[in-house]
């Protein structure tokens, strides 16, 4: 007897929605294992006061309960942490919407983290060189410059792919390191605030150079950009010919080619869109929660967005939900660090596990498990 994966007659719509939930459940189980093993590793089992192995095991379960609470519930209980959640979700979702389009067309931009950094740099150009400009056009100009910067940086791997056939996965990723180092150089070197007591930061942006907040909270108007971007992407995919081309080229490149759709154009286009959104996310960080150009502007939002894109079914609306969940993992990781003394890397473990499980569960959209009873012949023979 063995279990086989068998292709379904047609795609299962139910599994498409169930798969992220199933993946979340599996991640929680995986998380339990990690917390318990971590607890066991911190306890000196030979010390009778620790209650031995079972005492530690019990402590592990208690810890996991607390872990679940600080990870998923506590951030939602207070206004300031809710605001924080929105602040973290905003850039992640913006980037994820762009990446969804890329991945739908089977183009692999994994360098959003670098495009965020470049967007932050180009957007910061104006407030750093013209600190006195605060007019009504200042902020829009910064945002546009940020988007253009992200676009231009994303165009590099796209053009290299089109012109030379260079693997865009590797080039876009390599450019992340380059962008981060360049940002580090600017923040420590030429763009450092001369009156900043040698801290590696630019001058603090103020007045018309920062994103206004909404309704007496700390939530900034960048949240509105998220909804605009999500709606635009949804509209593009649902109602335009271009959206159709993206889908066809992603699922059946040959069919797309026969229909006269240009693969190269789509590579460039999806890279430009995702680059622009990543650049926007970058400048919104700098002109928002961060408030100045620093040596690093993003704690891995560009990579987290990859997970969000898949968890959100490569759908802009799905990306919003998934983005909030993953933003929660950042706050939860901080909570677990404070409450349990776990490493801040808990967030990344959680995120990596979640993506793994989503991808594995996604195979049940097209396949189902079937138990095959093999006759008492030798196993491994090919039947039918």
């Amino acid at each position: 007897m063995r279990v086989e994966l068998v292709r379904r007659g047609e795609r299962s719509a139910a599994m498409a929605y169930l798969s992220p939930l199933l993946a979340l459940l599996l991640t929680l189980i995986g998380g339990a294992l990690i917390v318990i093993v971590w607890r066991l590793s911190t306890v000196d089992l030979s010390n009778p006061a620790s209650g031995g192995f079972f005492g530690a095991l019990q402590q592990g379960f208690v810890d996991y309960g607390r872990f679940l609470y600080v990870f998923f519930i506590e951030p939602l209980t207070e206004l300031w942490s809710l605001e924080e959640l929105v602040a973290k979700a905003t850039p992640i979702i913006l980037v994820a919407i762009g990446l969804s389009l890329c991945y739908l067309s089977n183009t692999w931009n994994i360098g959003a983290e670098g495009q965020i950094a470049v967007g932050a740099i180009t957007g910061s150009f104006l407030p750093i060189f013209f600190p006195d400009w605060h007019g009504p056009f200042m902020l829009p100009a910064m945002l546009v410059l940020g988007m253009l910067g992200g676009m231009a940086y994303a165009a590099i791997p796209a053009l290299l792919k089109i012109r030379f056939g260079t693997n865009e996965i590797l080039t876009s990723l390599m450019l992340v390191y380059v962008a981060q180092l360049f940002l580090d150089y600017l923040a420590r070197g030429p763009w450092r605030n001369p009156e900043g007591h040698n801290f590696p930061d630019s001058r603090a942006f103020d007045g018309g150079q920062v994103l206004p907040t909404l309704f007496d909270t700390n939530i900034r108007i960048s949240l509105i950009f998220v909804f605009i971007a999500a709606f635009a992407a949804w509209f593009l995919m649902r109602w335009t010919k271009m959206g159709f081309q993206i889908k066809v080229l992603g699922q059946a490149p040959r069919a797309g080619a026969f229909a006269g759709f240009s693969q190269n154009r789509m590579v460039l286009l999806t890279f430009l869109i995702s680059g622009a959104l990543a650049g926007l996310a970058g400048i919104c960080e700098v002109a928002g929660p961060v408030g100045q150009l620093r040596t690093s502007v993003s704690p891995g939002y560009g990579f987290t967005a990859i997970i969000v894109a898949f968890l959100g079914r490569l759908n802009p609306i799905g990306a919003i939900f998934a983005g909030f969940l993953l933003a929660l993992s950042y706050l939860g990781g901080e909570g677990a660090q404070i409450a349990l003394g776990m490493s801040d890397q808990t967030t990344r473990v959680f995120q990596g596990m979640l993506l793994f499980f989503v991808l594995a569960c996604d195979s049940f959209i097209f396949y189902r498990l079937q138990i095959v009873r093999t006759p008492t012949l030798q196993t491994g023979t090919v039947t039918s």
Partner: protein
Amino acid sequence: MTGLMLEGILLTIITAATPLLFASIGELVTERSGVLNLGVEGMMAMGAVIGFAVAHSTGNIALGVVGAILAGMAMAALFGVVTLIFVANQVASGLALTLFGLGLSGLIGDAFVGVPGAGLARVSIPGLSDLPVVGLLFRLDPLTYLAVAITIAVSWFLFRMRGGLVLRAVGDSHVSAHALGYSVIRVRFMAVLFGGACSGLAGAYLSLVYTPQWTQAMTAGRGWIALALVVFGTWLPGRVAIGALLFGGVSILQLHAQALGVGVPSQFLSALPYLTTVIVLVIISRNRALVRANTPAALGQSFVPDR
């Protein structure tokens, strides 16, 4: 005097090239079987932390190396299950492996930050190590010898042995290989495990030899450079080894340039290995005939046996 300095630089280039060689030879075998595992960076990080942890707690470096190999294989097995059995997208799963590996290694390594490690002593091969110029090639650490041995063995296996022929057949046309009666999934799983073991070794080399300590994200993109090296080497072990030396050279020379203070900001020099990777990839990809000749035709494609 300058001879000594030159010898020192050559030695450091070889030590910088060794982890790249380990990781890229492993990935080469994986890709030759038709599987693209982008999780090299994550497997390396896990190898580095487990290698360091085991070596530190047992006081035995050899055990640390074994632990690193097993850690790399465990990570690879995870990838294998998700992509080969659950036929998930290989690109996305590889990214997941990298994110997961970097995170988990950070979590495990939390206890080892700042703990000094024991380096691996160099081994001189009697007789050969006293030779005037090439002598330094015989005064290296045992893991470097192992890397060279693995490279030669992989080259021999792939092009001189039946098993290698089967592996390449699976990577070029899984449908044909399946029709001939080979178990595509089994061959690929083993190739993935081999890649994991090599990445684990690469990680162990970093945390036990190159810089005997654990720091978070100490792999610093080397896993990605190793992936690029496989393309650079057009899936041929010899060329991959040359590429590893080249990149070892670039990363060491930029370090020396930083130390000398050549008037270029250090960040620009640090960016050199990554920029070189991009440029080299472009140069190689331009010659499409060269790349296509050895690219596994079924690279990145999932296989579900038609029953």
